[in-house]
């Protein structure tokens, strides 16, 4: 099971990130998780929001290049060693992780990741006891 992530093209100029976040804020869209990756020429902002489809529309109306795409969200206990245990499942199955970002709330950790094995994720999760969470669950955090 995958969830929707919003990827946004960011020109490398001062204030651009702020502009994009401002557009979403004014549209009453809440940001649950965010990460920015950058190169010397541009960046990609990746977001989990309270309403990805609407966030995409709003950005499009403001001529911001963006894309909705599928990622996997896992949750686990925020304890020493658990993170490694979670990822070892991917390693054992030979699935690569293209990128990942995490956050934790109290004693729970949340992992958003993109893997080459999205299609097999339910099977892998079952086999290794990973806890996949839905978009709805994430949005209720």
């Amino acid at each position, binding site marked *: 099971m995958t969830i929707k992530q919003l*990827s946004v*093209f960011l*020109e490398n100029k001062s204030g651009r990130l702020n502009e994009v976040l401002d557009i979403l804020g004014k549209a009453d869209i809440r940001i649950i998780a965010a990460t920015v990756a950058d*190169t010397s020429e*541009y960046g*990609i902002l990746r977001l989990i929001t309270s309403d990805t489809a609407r966030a995409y529309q709003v950005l*499009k109306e403001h001529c911001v*290049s963006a*894309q909705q795409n599928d990622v996997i969200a896992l949750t686990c206990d925020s304890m020493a060693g658990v993170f490694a245990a979670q990822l070892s499942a991917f390693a054992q199955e030979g699935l690569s992780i293209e990128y990942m970002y995490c956050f934790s709330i109290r004693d729970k950790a949340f992992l958003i990741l993109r893997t080459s094995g999205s299609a097999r994720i339910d099977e892998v999760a079952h086999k290794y006891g990973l806890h996949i969470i839905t978009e709805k669950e994430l949005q209720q955090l």
Partner: protein
Amino acid sequence: MDNHYFQPEIETMRRADLEALQIKRLKESIRIARQSPFYKARLGESGITPDSIRTLDDLRKIPFTTKNDLRTHYPFGLVAAPMDQVVRLHSSSGTTGNPTVICHSQHDLDQWANRVARCLYMVGLRDKDVFQNTSGYGMFTGGLGFQYGAEKLGALTVPAAAGNTIRQIKFIRDFGTTAIHAIPSYVFRLYEVMKEMGIDPRTDTRLTTLIIGAEPHTNAQRRKIEEALGVRAYNCFGMSEMSGPGVAFECPEQNGLHLWEDCYILEIIDPETLEPVPDGEIGEMVLTTLDRDAMPLLRYRTRDLTRILPGDCPCGRTHRRIDRLKGRSDDMFIVKGVNIFPMQIEKILMQFKELGANYLITIDTFNNNDEVLVEVELSDLFTDDYSQLQGLTREITRQLKDEILLTPKIKLVDKGALPQSSGKAVRVKDLRKNK
């Protein structure tokens, strides 16, 4: 007699005969031109008479004529015929100073109509056709130029003129229009309105042929028009200084425009050095009229960029072909000794579906080195994958390097970040101190 040609003896004339005809007519054009105040002085200074021309290469002794010459000798300084033989004039808008005026004798108008008829016949129109012209009539040559040409051909010619799309569509349906002349953007408008009205141009009209020109368009846009309307669409070239439409036109091969060399001498020059460029290379088109009485123009710098397509055309016509226009020579810039035209860059960028229509070229000096920066907007097909974005940048760079022979820097920007492509958008910014 082969029925592919309107004037087979001229259209398929052997090159040697065609060139002999050009020399003969060039001498006559010089003789006539010298009767105008402008050329009397200009050719007098350089000592050019009909006898100066022995071979076609001798043409290069003649000084160029420019749009500015037409403006400064406004309105009748280049008229060579007695004014009582002048029966019509056309004029450009003159947004930047005096307009340019072109005067025609009855002979000039007849020959012009003949050229246009030749073009229309070439793309398959005959006297049974119904030709609807959506050009503006009046001073703009696309109106009367096509009107007289289509009438000469014998087609039923509908001077619908510009605008009123609903009425255009009514005419198309009621009169059984088979051919339309329109600018490409208006064709798309016609199509959209037909769709709204529930009319399928492929089944509900008799349209077979579209003549499109006057507005830059790509081959992909042409294919789109052909697909949408179920027609064949042909590119045409004309300019008011060369009378109007009918200077060069595509044949059914749709690969380059035959320029009528019995009526014009074609040269392609480097706009900087003013020397001829080899066939196949882009340069500024220079035209000399060969069959105009009232107002011949010798070596007129069109400012339009194109190239000669080398080789013979399978259609059998011997008149050489020019490529679709590549922009204006005023837009050319030189970096590290290489002439670069924005259209060369545009052509490459437009092939990437990941990119939008707008781009901006900036030339600047860094560490005494001139560099070209190309900023281009992304289309909606943005990808989340870095390696794809980097691969895209690399591929654009590689293809541009092949085309312009130096390595530009590519910067991807957001949609809407650059000036719009419509109208006279600035495409090139040259920030160098010593150009």
